């Protein structure tokens, strides 16, 4: 079947003309050409205006914040309430399972000490250094693997394998290699995060749409300019997902590292938590858990913000 759309019924004259012409088996001898009116600029821009979706009203900032905040606040309230009930039921002795009020009091005391913030600073410095190192290594490895087929055959599946490896498995080796030092922690953080970063970049490069590649080729993009103007920007969303996942892995590895590898003279968040456990100070242990949780959520929010900004720019959001 021809794929041409059926003749519009609107133009009865045209149809009649067509039928008449077909019957006579002649062409070009139809009725005199009608006066042809072509579209004006106004008609073009009128249609453009109609086709553009009207701007959505975003609402007041305060209202939007409240709309996203109240479910979270409610969830926290429910958890705290359940916790309090378990405490009141005396499931465990109070010194093992403290009440929320005890913990929040401890937490409040904790965050007002200078020592605590020194510990957080040390831990965050390690986290950021380790993550930055993992990003650098992951990017180089990812770019190399996607560029050279033999390299991909050689280590492509190894990268995915490393990604699924629990980071704690590396610590015995790391301690033997680097003793109880910063390098041992860095080693595990990097080996935990770099594969995710590399994989994000590799899949980003692999899934650059074919039409874009053809457009680039017709424009004459080659070698470096092809990477600069096409491959790298096109793989950005996948790369950002890789970064986000890499961060999660490096943060987990770091916390495991700080609990296992106690570098003499450093009092990181992990070391403090371990000390609190040694002193059977449950409220303090729970306080540190909350601190690590909050830091994790905050950083995740940063990645989400970056991801959302990118998606919005690219029009990948379902709006």
């Amino acid at each position: 079947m021809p794929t041409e759309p059926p003749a519009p019924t609107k133009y009865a004259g045209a149809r009649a003309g067509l039928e008449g012409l077909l019957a006579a088996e002649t062409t070009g001898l139809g009725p005199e050409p009608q006066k042809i009116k072509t579209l004006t600029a106004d008609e073009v821009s009128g249609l453009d205006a109609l086709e553009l979706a009207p701007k959505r009203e975003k609402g007041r900032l305060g209202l939007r914040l409240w709309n996203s905040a109240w479910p979270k606040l409610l969830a926290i309230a429910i958890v705290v309430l359940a916790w309090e009930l378990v405490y009141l039921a005396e499931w465990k002795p109070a010194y093992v399972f403290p009440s929320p009020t005890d913990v929040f009091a401890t937490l409040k005391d904790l965050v007002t000490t200078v020592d605590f913030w020194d510990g957080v600073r040390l831990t965050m410095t390690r986290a950021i250094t380790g993550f930055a190192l993992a990003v650098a290594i992951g990017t180089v490895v990812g770019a190399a693997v996607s560029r050279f087929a033999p390299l991909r055959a050689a280590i492509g599946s190894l990268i995915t394998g490393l990604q699924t490896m629990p980071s704690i498995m590396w610590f015995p080796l790391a301690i033997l290699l680097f003793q109880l030092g910063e390098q041992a922690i860095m080693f595990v953080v990097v080996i935990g995060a770099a594969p995710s970063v590399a994989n994000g970049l590799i899949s980003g490069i692999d899934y650059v749409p074919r039409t874009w590649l053809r457009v680039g080729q017709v424009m004459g993009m080659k070698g470096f300019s092809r990477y600069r103007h096409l491959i790298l920007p096109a793989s950005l969303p996948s790369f950002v997902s890789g970064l986000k996942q890499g961060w999660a892995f490096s943060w987990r590895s770091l916390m495991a590292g700080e609990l296992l590898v106690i570098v003499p003279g450093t009092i990181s968040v992990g070391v403090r938590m371990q000390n609190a456990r040694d002193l059977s100070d449950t409220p303090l242990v729970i306080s540190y858990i909350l601190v690590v949780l909050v830091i994790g959520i905050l950083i995740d929010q940063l990645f989400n913000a970056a991801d959302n900004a990118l998606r919005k720019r690219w029009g990948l959001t379902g709006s």
Partner: protein
Amino acid sequence: MSILETTSVRTESVVRIENVSKTYGSGGNALLALDRVSLDVQQGEFVCLLGASGCGKSTLLSLVAGLDGISSGTLDTGGRKVALMFQEAALFPWLSVIGNVELPLRLQGVGKAERRKRALELLEVVRLSGFADKRPHELSGGMRQRVALARALAQNADVLLMDEPFGALDAMTRDILHDELERIWREQNLTVLFVTHNVREAVRLGDRVILLSSRPGRVIEDFPIKHPRPRRIDSPEVSGQAGEITDRLRAEVARHAN
């Protein structure tokens, strides 16, 4: 009708395709996509390639664009530059509308101020100068195709290859884009090789409509379209000739029954 008869007169040919064949794969699995296709496109001509599925019309465009190599025959564009447009606008989402139009200029090494000026002129040509700083996803499908056209023009190519560029658009938008393309083709003195499976569209736009057979693609007939421009897709002349070509196309499609 011989191809040579229709093209022997006047002006220089911009694209010369002589006995071009294209085979995919090899041995027992080899698929002959194009079989000894010959076609000459003159400077300033608007040529439509028409055929049913599997006639290799898109393959032929890829060959002319240099995206793929021919298996035998001669294909000569005389070193001319070509630009290619697809059914999807394929604009880059990390660039603004004007950034997309500027990109080919940037690759040609045009300076910053100069390429912005030129890109704005081109957006003016496709009547989108008010949308320079929008993102591609903020535009409608028809507007995106016009940006893609501006980007193709920015490549400063001698030949514009279009692969069903309006296939995904609604009828009203398509009508408008026909008018716009015809206007720009005339103003910019372009040479266009336009692939479609829509007979009326081909007759509406083309100076010539080349009908291709399917599996393998061969030139069946070369229809000159003499109706005065500007044309309307619903005019009796266009409909009439479209009817004639449709009959020929149907006969070709029926050949593939069983």
